[in-house]
């Protein structure tokens, strides 16, 4: 189930990637998004360790030891790529020059605030670039499985430490597309075969339900 769920999320998020934008993809599920962006679409990917113009993985034996992504995997640089040091890279991120970041999530609360960097006492990996990305990117999309083994991850108030107090732009799960607004979380779309009641039942925060909630359009 989880592979299909992740693929569904990645395909829906890919629809949010606009032409001519500078995009950052987090490690894990968000990385799958790249597979569903139409080939030849003019999108530039930026990685936190200092490259605009991230290309595909190199063929075996053609890795450049000085060229990796933020997950440590070897990458290629597309023609027209630019390399940057960490101050410039995070200047881009904090300064609002990155159009979209797609990140994983542990919890999102009713105000649209994301927690995705630690579980006290259990998992303390450090925030890396996540706090800067959520605070500074023009749009922030959370791509995550709707529940943690049945326990809702969309909650009234995050119990886990926040990544930023700035609300995210959109939450995409295998069940729904939810948009944080000033009034609260709005249920914009539901996944094929999923009812509004299913989404409400798997969500621990109040959802605003518009008169019609269409099914996802997938790329």
């Amino acid at each position, binding site marked *: 189930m989880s592979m299909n769920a992740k693929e569904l999320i990645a395909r829906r998020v890919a629809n949010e990637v606009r032409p001519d934008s500078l995009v950052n993809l987090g490690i894990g599920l968000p990385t799958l998004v790249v597979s569903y962006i139409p080939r030849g679409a003019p999108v530039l990917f930026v990685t936190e360790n*200092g490259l605009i113009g991230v290309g595909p993985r190199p063929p075996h034996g053609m890795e450049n030891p000085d060229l990796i992504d933020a997950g440590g995997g070897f990458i290629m640089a597309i023609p027209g790529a630019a390399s940057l*040091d960490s101050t410039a890279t995070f200047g881009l991120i904090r300064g609002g020059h990155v159009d979209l970041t797609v990140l994983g999530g542990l919890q999102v609360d009713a105000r649209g605030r994301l927690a995705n960097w630690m579980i006290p006492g259990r998992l303390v990996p450090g925030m890396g670039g996540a706090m800067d990305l959520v605070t500074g990117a023009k749009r922030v999309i959370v791509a995550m499985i709707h529940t943690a083994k049945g326990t809702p991850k969309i909650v009234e108030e995050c119990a886990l430490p926040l990544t*930023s107090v700035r609300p995210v732009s959109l939450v995409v799960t295998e069940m729904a597309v939810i948009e944080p607004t000033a009034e609260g979380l709005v249920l914009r779309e539901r996944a094929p075969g999923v009812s509004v009641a299913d989404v409400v039942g798997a969500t621990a925060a109040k959802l605003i339900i518009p008169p019609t909630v269409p099914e996802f359009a997938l790329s």
Partner: protein
Amino acid sequence: MKTARHPDDLVAMIPDGAVLMIGGFLGVGSPHRLIQGLVSAGRKGLTLIANDTHHPGLGIGKLIDARVVKRLIASHIGTNPETQRQMTAGELEIELVPQGTLAERIRAGGYGLGGVLTKTGVGTIVEKGKPTIEIDGETWLVEKPLRADFALISARQADYFGNLTYELTAQNFNPVMAMAAATVIVEADEIVAVGMIPPDSVRTPGILVDYLLEHPA
């Protein structure tokens, strides 16, 4: 002019308890021979400022394995279970800093600034114990500058003035760290004659560099 030195001579300058900045991102752009030198010399009690601690047995991870580090300032330790184990066991003191804030705190240290104002971390546990300041109705977190006794830098090319170039994602924290330490030691892939690096290609000017690591025999 700088002369290239043997790693043992360079490591001998770094005393136990020193504050070090070490460049690199998951080992790419880290000065691996200097790191090995610190381990071999049995250094103890270092404060380390670095983006991450790579993996056990690799790059900066070797310093963690060998218990060289007493205090760590980093943005990410998720790739190194040994770092997390030492932290949980109370053997290693760790300050986690958002990656962009880490870069800017080092920049402030090197550029003569009294601190950084950033929105990153406002209202989160990163804010704990730090002042905030309101400017034109917006809240900013005040983050202090970082400086070090030594910066260990990895570069693509060095000339004998100490001018440096970097390559691709091996730049990361190296150029900014070269600004923020009292003594800067460089491990370059290649040392070239003065004049070989055109002025426009110099990313770290040689006046910042104190020592070059010699090439293996």
